[in-house]
């Protein structure tokens, strides 16, 4: 699936998006997989309460299932307006 990162999440991980091969059942499972990869992921996902997630461009929850999802995006709380 396509995984996207925005704002300081993108800066900590160092890339705006990547294709991830995963069997993760939920967003939390995917985060656990990513955190186990490298320090830069650990740095980005250290505090989940500071993050938001969108599944296929809809704001979602960390315990949401990933079945059928094509695009996951992680970012800090939005500051529009």
């Amino acid at each position, binding site marked *: 699936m396509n995984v996207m990162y925005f*704002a300081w999440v993108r800066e900590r991980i160092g890339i705006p998006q990547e294709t991830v091969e995963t069997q993760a059942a939920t967003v939390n499972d995917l985060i656990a997989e990513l955190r186990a990869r490298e320090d830069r992921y650990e740095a980005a996902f250290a505090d989940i309460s500071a993050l938001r997630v969108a599944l296929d461009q809809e704001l979602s929850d960390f315990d949401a299932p990933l079945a059928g999802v094509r695009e996951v*995006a992680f970012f800090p709380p939005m500051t529009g307006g």
Partner: protein
Amino acid sequence: MGVRVQAEPFDVGTELNAFAKDRTDIGAVVSFTGVVRDTDGDLSEMQIEHYPGMTERAIGKIVDQAVKRWALADALVIHRYGTLKPGAPIMMVATAAAHRAAAFEAADFLMDYLKSRAPFWKKEITSIGADWVAAKDEDEDALNRW
């Protein structure tokens, strides 16, 4: 209804003059303009990042809700991304309705939701360095008003 997400500057006066121009059934037009603020006199620029695709969808949904709830005759949202200088307009909303209460309330609702539900992120560049603007708790709380 209009939603525009763009890097280019826009002219608030031009946009407002064109907004709901040919409608004779409206009695109220309300607009809000968000401007790059240099609080400490040290801001060289603001960089605004967004999530192409989700941005337009999220704003479109918010506008649809406002139009239905307040029976708006028209609504417009323009939001810029990219690099902006202090004093530059970041975004604007305009609402048109039969009466002013609906136009004011709908514009207020649109701003509260755009603030924390439209996927934009602001970064301030000063002489000290670059800092992401943090979301405020009160911005999230503001959604509970609606």
